[in-house]
């Protein structure tokens, strides 16, 4: 079976992006009347300037589809950064190896301590994030983190540098549920320009990471693009196409998509083709009309007011109270969840509200924050749950 990177060259991304930009009003209206995007061409029409006047109708359709499949609930998770060591040079990333920031890899005991702070805040789903560095972020280190965190977090996902399926195997066996890897941009020349050194240069190898993760047994696959690196419409169309490929080829996995916007970070990279708030909402609604069953993730990169509004238009997973620095939670005031200095952060978040404040905002909009939606016992022969009754 062909992987996404093998079919990618025949994907007419440039012409779809051009068609999107030049969609006329009648075509946009016709797709919106369908209530669904039934093809990539439909999706391109929905993210076009011509569809923007129909945003309210798109959001209503997106909300209806989202509620029917996911319910009036919001799944909560928190990122925990293990390490900012990185062998790559990426022009937009705070962790880029040429940035003079303090470099940290958390000892496992500190990982557990930080995770404990998140667990006390309610989180039962955690995303472990690290820069790409085979020495500091080794497979054994990751497996040890998973094993130590499972008693607190029934759901653990990883966001690491791409690996072989055989490297992922022990992480799945240790109880890890999901893997997240963003392509950053699907525009190959831009990708080559922005990733100048390190293994991340391998554009097509990165593209098939989700499929290698599926082969290793991960149940949740997260993909996405970082908006602000290239034409956002082209990257959104590519993410939609990639998700569609995964739904066919990795049919047992829950696919989640995310379109984070570039945030200020060390290095001072300036976003290209910036996407407005209105356009971001439009693209989320369009993703829902194309992918009715896929999770859509919205992180604390976005400001509170926008996040609150987007809860009702298709988003299904939210982080809250995040630190993007290894060891960063240790600098939080635990009574108020106020962040202290974060000199080694990957980027600066926009929504700094405490998790419980975000949860209250979710409730105020008629949704229930769901902290636990996966049980370790589904995959483990002998669940190592805190306080589990003896067999």
């Amino acid at each position, binding site marked *: 079976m062909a992987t996404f990177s093998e079919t990618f060259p025949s994907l007419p991304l440039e012409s779809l992006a051009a068609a999107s930009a030049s969609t006329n009003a009648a075509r946009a209206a016709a797709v919106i009347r369908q209530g669904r995007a039934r093809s990539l061409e439909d999706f391109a029409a929905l993210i076009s300037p011509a569809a923007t006047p129909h945003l309210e109708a798109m959001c209503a359709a997106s909300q209806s589809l989202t509620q029917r499949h996911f319910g009036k609930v919001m799944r909560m998770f928190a990122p925990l950064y293990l390490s900012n060591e990185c062998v790559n040079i990426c022009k937009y990333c705070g962790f880029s190896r040429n940035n003079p920031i303090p470099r940290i890899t958390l000892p496992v005991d500190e990982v557990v301590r930080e995770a404990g702070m998140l667990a006390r805040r309610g989180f*039962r789903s955690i995303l472990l994030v690290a820069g790409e560095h085979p020495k500091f972020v080794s497979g054994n280190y990751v497996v040890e983190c998973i094993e130590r965190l499972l008693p607190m977090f029934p759901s653990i996902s990883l966001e690491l540098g791409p690996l072989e399926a055989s490297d992922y195997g022990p992480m799945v066996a240790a109880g890890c549920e999901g893997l997240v890897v963003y392509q950053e941009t699907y525009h190959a020349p831009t990708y080559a320009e922005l990733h100048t050194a390190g293994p991340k240069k391998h554009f097509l190898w990165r593209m098939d990471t989700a499929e290698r993760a599926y082969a290793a047994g991960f149940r949740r696959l997260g993909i996405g693009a970082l908006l602000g690196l290239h034409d956002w419409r082209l990257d959104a169309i590519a993410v939609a196409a990639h998700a569609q490929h995964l*739904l066919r080829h990795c049919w047992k996995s829950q696919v989640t998509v995310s379109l984070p916007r570039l945030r200020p970070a060390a290095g001072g990279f300036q976003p290209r083709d910036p996407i407005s708030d209105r356009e971001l909402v439009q693209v989320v609604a369009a993703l829902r009309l194309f992918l009715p069953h896929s999770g859509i993730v919205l992180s604390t990169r976005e400001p509170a007011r926008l996040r609150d509004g987007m809860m009702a238009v298709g988003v299904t997973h939210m982080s809250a109270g995040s630190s993007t620095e290894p060891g960063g939670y240790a600098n939080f005031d635990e009574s108020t969840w106020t962040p202290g200095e974060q000199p080694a952060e990957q980027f600066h978040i926009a929504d700094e509200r405490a998790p419980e404040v975000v949860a209250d905002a979710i409730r105020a909009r008629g949704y229930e924050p769901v902290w*636990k939606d996966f049980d370790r016992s589904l995959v483990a022969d002998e*669940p190592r749950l805190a306080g589990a009754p003896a067999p």
Partner: protein
Amino acid sequence: MLPELPTETLRIAGRDFKSRLFVGTGKFSSPEAMRAALAASGTEMVTVALKRADLSGSKDAYANILEFLEPERYLLLPNTAGAQNATEAVRIARLALASGLPNWVKLEIHPDPNYLLPDPIETLAAAETLVKEGFVVLPYINADPVLALRLQDVGVAAVMPLGSPIGSHRGLETRAQIEIIIEQARVPVVVDAGLGAPSHAAAAMEMGADAVLVNTAIAIAPDPSAMAVAFAAATIAGRAARENGLGRQRAKAAPTSPLTTFLD
């Protein structure tokens, strides 16, 4: 107010149910809204996804859905949602029992997390194992009459064919197959999934289903309690009509003039 409309009591595995509306507990906007809707529905059986519950006994305040379900009021029917195969479903059913939940289980195995359609092969394997271990097994299945019979052969307490995919609100798209399942059934038939309107529930009861299970349509309604009452009324109406010969009349229509008098 509607007058009381008594219908026959439903018996599953030796337990009686006056209400033929079963309700799911996912997708509600709050636990309070869920609790109110369950009470309003008059249901006596509610299903709950174990993956959302705390099964460790540590009374986790962030996974406390079970605390909102009064066990003296409803039979809690733990479901195995999240399981992708028989091994996982069996494991989570055992864990539920060990954590003090009833030995009833709604067996649902859907490896595809998108349409959530049940895997017939894994479901049959898990049902066989769980029945042998003493569980009361209610399997969620596609409307496949032969699978329904195979499951009855291994001893399930009811079968739960879907009307249409979960959350689709498309009603009884599998009507013809469910009619065969009902015709051949030796255990109660509960139509589950896809019932998006009270009329769908009424239609299922009119065609002879023993009960219906509704979740999404109640949970995401602007007023879940009001929608729960609407489904309850429709379920009763459909059942009462059935008990008054509705479906049987239709299936065996009598011509207005006898056709065989020439033989007398």
